[in-house]
């Protein structure tokens, strides 16, 4: 255990400083010792979680978060062919940018979720009505929404209202700058949870999968 933690911290440091040779070395070391899924579970995901949390606290910068998530996505792709479903008991889930043109937050969350072995549809950017139609058509159980602007955050209300009207208990998880500046906003717009970083996205999706299966 302690050993795994040391490795996680080392990987985190290497990712933060974008030290590619060191990242490769740590990756090889882990792959030599553990099965692919364990490397993801015990090394890559915890390192990404630590980096995400450090960003939310202002200890690392977004550029480091983004580059780390991109590198980890590559590492995971090398471990697992993309078409093989890795995790059991996953819910039908998707992520979208609502209303505005800022795709980076979603991209990071998506790549961290995928790097963690979660299967999740990418809806790209959509307006509220389009998003509702698509979510219903895909019979989603979880919808993650990312926004940059306050007016877009307020549109989550419309999505929630449309789901309620059709009595569809789709869980909505939100994230993005407006929610970071106003910590009561996610409740106000009818979301079920708010994530301060991509790591919170993992926690959300895991928790809901557990609730549904139990």
């Amino acid at each position, binding site marked *: 255990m302690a050993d795994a933690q040391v490795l996680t911290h080392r990987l985190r440091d290497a990712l933060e400083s*974008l030290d590619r040779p060191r990242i490769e070395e740590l990756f090889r070391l882990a792959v030599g010792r553990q099965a692919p899924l364990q490397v993801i579970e015990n090394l890559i995901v915890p390192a990404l979680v630590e980096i995400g949390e450090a960003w939310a606290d*202002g200890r*690392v*910068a*977004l*550029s*480091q978060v*983004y*580059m780390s998530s*991109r590198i980890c996505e590559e590492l995971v792709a090398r471990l697992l062919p993309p078409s093989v479903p890795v995790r059991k008991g996953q819910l039908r889930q998707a992520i979208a940018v609502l*209303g*505005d*043109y*800022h*795709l*980076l937050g979603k*991209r990071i969350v998506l790549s961290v979720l995928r790097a963690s072995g979660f299967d999740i549809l990418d809806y790209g950017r959509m307006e509220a009505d389009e998003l509702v139609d698509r979510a219903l058509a895909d019979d989603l159980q979880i919808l993650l929404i990312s926004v940059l*602007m*306050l*007016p*877009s955050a*307020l549109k989550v209300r419309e999505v929630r209202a449309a789901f309620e009207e059709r009595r569809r208990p789709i869980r909505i998880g939100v994230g993005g*700058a*407006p929610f*970071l*500046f*106003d910590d*009561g*906003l996610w409740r*106000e717009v009818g979301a079920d949870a708010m994530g301060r970083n991509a790591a919170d996205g993992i926690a959300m999706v895991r928790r809901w999968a557990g609730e549904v299966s139990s």
Partner: protein
Amino acid sequence: MTPQQRVQAAMAHRQPDRVPVFLLATMHGAKELGLGIREYFSRAEHVIEGQLRLQAKYRGDCVSASFYSALEAEAFGCETMFIEDGPPNCAGPVLRRDEDIDRLRPPRVIETPGLLRVLEAIRGLKERLGGRLPILGSAIAPFSLPVMQMGFARYIELIYEQPRRLARLMAVNRRFCVAWANAQLAAGATAVGYADPVSSTTIVPRDLYLRTGHRVATSTLARIKGPTAYHLASGRGLPIARDIAATGAVAVGVSALDDLAAWKAAVGDRVTLVGNLNGVAMRRWTAADAEGEVKRAIAAAGRGGGFILADSHGEVPWQVPDEVLLAIRAAVERWGRYPLDWTGG
């Protein structure tokens, strides 16, 4: 004191009669005129009239001639998408491939209708106000503009992986930024806000900033012929507070996520601090919340001058009601009178 004298005293780190307050409502003028946001920004006269009415209503210590950030991306060919209840956004990148940077040329201010509208608004405001109230212009930093020119993800990759292309892009953007800022000063702007959120520690770590955004800022600000306010647009900046103070800017916008007193301690009287009310949360403030927040900020940074109360982004969201802005204004009247004995200093 006129607002201009009040702001000048504060910026000289002397105590004016009271803490100056900037209520930077760029869009609220549309409500005053009964116009949609798109229509409002389509004519300089609207913005002139809107800013004057807002000034009469809130009695803030400046007027703002900023329209919206996507305007500068428009100059490079980006398309702007308007919405009904907030600022428009740049709809997508124009530099679709990295090689496009190699051929990029700075657009000319006089050939860009949107920018000419801003200059017309500045001239109109100057005509109506004379030297009584500061008129604030704004320009996006060369280091922050690429998010709109090429998309955020690709830009971060460029920063890390293609230093020579980055240098070329910075050179083009700097030429544009300097020309744009100087045109606003020539039209009558008192100072120019230098919007550089990508340099905030929210987005890049300090060591990278010192090699990139900081150098770009120092060389850009040196060519701008008037006072500049460095704005991180509510990105965090405490770890680079002293670095920013060394860029040549006379003021700096502080994030609601940063500790204002710690900023004051870090920069002393080298720059004037502007901030740091939380504009996003402001929408739901009661009068008592507003008063509490105003007191907090003044107590943290008001003493000895060198402080202007404002929101932390440099733009109050459309959703913030008049009552809140008026409550902020009333609280400044009540708690902002120097010598601020109540702060215990």
